[in-house]
């Protein structure tokens, strides 16, 4: 057992996230590693290329804090609510600083990760034709299909320097069990040079081996393991805590101005030492409201002769 991978979020970010890196904090709505984003902000990382299909509130916060120089994305909205105001301020007004964008469709961005993970030179796909996006993004190209002679759109591989993936449970070596919306977590992990796994629970290797189909990321792809309960709040972790939809709606008000955003950041990011301290600030009423009823799957047998 190599328990040297087990460390705090502060250590993991300090060791594996460098200024100028391309980072991918994974999770499609689900299990977005907010605690990692907050630690990156506290450590003052800058010039990051922030890659995520949906920048979501996490990158809105990192943009407001001035961590990013570029956003690689496919949907820059607050799902079900509206705009990401910090992203828009950076893009429309250069506040707090200008930000470059590298934009795709969801299929394009998830395809870039798939191509990165599988080491393909590019990935052909049936999308983008007829859209106005390719003329503005030279990374989206057209090639001739060698079999039919038709034009086909392609996207290049995306290979982030570091991915952070939050999961329900992992062992100390980083074998990670994930369920629920599995988004682009596996693709992001396999595409990235370094991987930080954070988890709600650390379990024994026997638990992992009892259900190998659920291990989407194996230990040898992982560089650090962080035991970080409630890492994803206000996003959620299926079966552990629900999405804090109320906060997603409040974010729209909090971010009306850059100053009001930074006031919130002072209190909830800069003003706390780590995720435990953040959790102590959440009211117990809020926490209780987010705890779901259990819904267990039927057990399966992996037995063999």
């Amino acid at each position, binding site marked *: 057992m190599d328990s040297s991978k087990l460390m705090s979020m502060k250590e993991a970010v300090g060791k594996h996230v460098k200024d100028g890196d391309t980072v991918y904090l994974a999770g*499609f*709505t*689900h299990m977005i590693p907010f605690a990692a984003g907050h630690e990156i902000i506290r450590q003052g990382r800058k010039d990051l290329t922030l890659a995520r*299909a*949906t920048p979501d509130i996490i990158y809105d916060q990192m943009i407001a804090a001035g961590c990013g120089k570029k956003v690689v*994305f*496919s*949907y*820059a*909205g607050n*799902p*079900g*609510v509206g*705009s*990401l105001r910090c*992203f*828009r301020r950076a*893009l*429309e007004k250069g506040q707090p600083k200008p930000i470059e964008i590298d*934009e*795709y*469709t*969801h*299929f*394009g961005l*998830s*395809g870039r*990760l*798939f191509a990165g993970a599988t080491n393909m030179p590019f990935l052909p*796909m*049936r*999308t*983008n*034709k*007829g*859209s*106005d*996006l390719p003329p*503005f993004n030279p990374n989206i190209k057209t090639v001739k299909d060698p079999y039919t002679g*038709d034009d086909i759109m392609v996207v290049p591989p995306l290979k982030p320097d570091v991915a952070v993936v939050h999961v329900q449970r992992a062992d100390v070596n980083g074998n990670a069990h994930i*369920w*629920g*919306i*599995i*988004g*682009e*977590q*596996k*693709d992001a992990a396999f595409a990235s040079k370094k991987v930080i796994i954070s988890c709600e629970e650390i379990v024994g290797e026997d638990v992992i081996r009892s259900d190998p189909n659920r291990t989407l990321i194996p230990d040898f792809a992982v560089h650090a393991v962080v035991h970080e309960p409630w890492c994803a709040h206000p996003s*959620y972790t*299926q079966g552990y805590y*629900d*999405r804090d*939809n109320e906060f*997603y709606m409040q974010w729209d008000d909090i971010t009306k101005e850059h100053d009001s955003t930074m006031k919130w950041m002072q209190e909830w990011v800069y003003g706390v030492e780590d995720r435990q301290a953040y959790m102590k600030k959440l009211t117990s009423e809020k926490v209780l409201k987010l705890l*779901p009823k259990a*819904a267990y799957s039927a057990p399966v047998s992996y037995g063999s002769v």
Partner: protein
Amino acid sequence: MVECSPSELMVVVAARELKDKETVLVGVGIPNLAANLAKKLQAPGLNMVYESGAVGSNPSRMPLSIGDPCLVTGAKSVCSMYEQFAYYLQGGRIDVGFLGGAQIDKYGNINSTVIGQYKTPKVRLPGSGGACDIASNVKKIIVITPHEKRRFVEKVDFKTSPGFIDGKAAWKALKLQGGGPYAVITNLCTMKFDDASGEMMVTSLHPGVTIEKVQENTPWKLKVSDKLEQTPAPTEKEAATLRSLDPHKIYLG
């Protein structure tokens, strides 16, 4: 006749377009209500698929986002984001997709990216997400939108999701596997697309609406189908079932 709000009317009319056993790619809000309503009425076997990877969802409450945990509890399957787009969408397994946007033009091109210029945005919108992928690959695109002049424009500022471009010929040349725009449902009428030209045309007027009123709210001279129909008013059953789906009127207000 049941009194209905404009949102309720749009949801009821959209729900009628969905057939049993179809597979529909659903967004949150109004399209989600339309799909759930159809499932409770004429289409109990409707498969609801979300771009977050949830397949055959049975949500017990209204989801705020397409990645809401209630879409996973009791779903038929959950796949990765890449698999959703590759296996389901590009694989040709989705019959109907709902799209929305800030602007739509007479050929059904949709803008959800930017008002103004891409490089110097007046208003930056969220962007495609899966919209362009859906527009390129599903058999029928349905758009539900309030009928306002700022939304219906002669030419969109940015084509996020291709409709029939500037006519059927240009669209055919793209060789997309999808069927393109199928219906635009507003609070005033239902519009479909002319087979030959690919231009939007009014096919059905909602109760109490005149063609003049539709034209007043559309900035170009609208085509009208020679088989113009009257949209049947929502029935008691449709209205009651719909209201039970959104009892707090989050989307139906």
